[in-house]
């Protein structure tokens, strides 16, 4: 269980998070929605410790994340970055198998490569991309390699920052199914940021909407359409009319 209490973060005068309270139950899939630039990516980075929050506490199963052994903590996580963040000096398969090739119980290279190819197949990529460099792939392919890297070591908790952005509808469907499968079959906890309402409905158990630096609404996905919250209603209908200003 991940629990955030009163998390705030400002970059200079830009107060991005103004007190975020959020709980993600173990083995569930939480989707974060919210306008562009509201701090969704920053929120994930705060949990991972990549960005230090100014105030508030973040706990994982009751222990403060800033006070745990960093290596053991991070070993439980997988993260897909919004820009894929592939290592461009390494071929695709070494990107995917990066964690498997590090540390004390690292796998031998051929085995790690097989695991990488298996994960690539799960995100809809053929084995022949394994030896290419990330720069030689299209944006959507890079995104899927990033996804394969995030799930390569079968982590308990996975963060997906816009997993389906830049993918064609069929591939987006494949990825949605994959994320759902990882949660239901492998019991992982997932936290996904997406702007794609189809994805929201396909992936999530619960939805939280970030707006103005706080969680504006949170609830089960079944109540998304009847939330009674004007912000959520405007967001899911994609209307320019409503409490959320179109120019931000």
């Amino acid at each position, binding site marked *: 269980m991940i629990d955030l209490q009163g998390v705030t973060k400002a970059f200079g005068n830009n107060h991005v998070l103004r007190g975020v309270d959020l709980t993600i139950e173990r083995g569930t899939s939480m989707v974060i929605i919210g306008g562009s630039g509201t701090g969704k990516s920053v929120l994930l980075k705060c949990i991972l410790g990549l960005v230090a929050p100014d105030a508030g506490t973040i706990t994982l199963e009751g222990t403060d994340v800033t006070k745990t052994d960093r290596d053991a903590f991070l070993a439980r996580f997988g993260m897909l970055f919004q820009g894929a963040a592939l290592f461009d000096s390494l071929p695709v398969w070494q990107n995917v198998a*990066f964690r498997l090739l590090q*540390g004390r119980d690292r796998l031998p290279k051929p085995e790690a490569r097989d695991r990488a190819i298996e994960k690539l197949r799960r995100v809809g990529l053929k084995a022949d991309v394994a030896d290419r460099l990330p720069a030689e792939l299209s944006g959507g392919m890079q995104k899927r390699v990033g996804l394969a890297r995030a799930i390569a070591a079968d982590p308990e908790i996975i963060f997906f920052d816009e997993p389906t952005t830049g993918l064609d509808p069929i591939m987006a469907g494949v990825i949605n199914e994959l994320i759902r499968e990882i949660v239901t079959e492998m019991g992982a906890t997932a936290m996904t940021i997406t702007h794609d309402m189809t994805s929201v409905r396909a992936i999530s158990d619960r939805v939280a909407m970030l707006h103005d630096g706080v969680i504006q609404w949170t609830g089960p996905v079944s109540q998304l359409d009847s939330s009674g919250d004007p912000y959520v209603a405007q967001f899911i209908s994609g209307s320019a009319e409503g409490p959320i200003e179109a120019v931000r």
Partner: protein
Amino acid sequence: MTLLAPLGALGRATLALLAMVGRVALFALSALSHMLRPPFYGREFGAALMNVGWLSLPVVGLTAIFTGGALALQIYSGGARFSAEAVVPQIVAIGIVRELGPVLVGLMIAARVTSSIAAEIATMKVTEQIDALVTLSTDPMKYLVAPRVLAALIVVPLLVAVGDVIGIFGGYAVATGTLGFNAAAYLKNTVDFLEPLDIISSLVKGCAFGGLAALMGCYFGMTSGRGAQGVGRATKGSVEAAAILILAANFLLTGAFFSL
């Protein structure tokens, strides 16, 4: 108030400089400590050796040979003013080994290696690759910084040694080719004249300059701002800082070795 404004600005600039020196020193200490503790990344280290050392050889060789040749011509024509043309081999040897070899190699490394390290690491920072490394339980100080700095500490003294030899050869070629020196006597004069301390100082300088060059590249890369502009600033800043630190360190080391 307005009278004191320049003083205030000076004070702020000084404080900013001191804070920066402190941050760089802490960064250097952290890099050193990561060099000594596992895990070690052999592949990264090998690539850095290749990039800093082997691939710098052409630039170092060309710089050294032209400088050695020009130095021989200068000393010959300058020496002729008081009939001291004969000292060409000795002064070329001292000039190259003690000063020009290490300094020019150091500056070439700053131009070639510092800039590329800074641009590479800054790009990784900007595209979240550094964040990705951290989430994959890999310390960027260990994976990116330590191998590069260690490689430079080891391989730049070797480059300086190569530069010294080629520089002396440049002087030798000009002196024997156009200035009428006897080849065997030139070499004998060079070898007899150089003392072990000259060579030791040359290698120590190489080690120091290499370390500074790689550290500046890594520091500016790791602290890069956002966007393409951030990468550009980091690269420019790293080369400036490395060049100035190399020249300042050269002055201090020359003082330490030869003014006692």
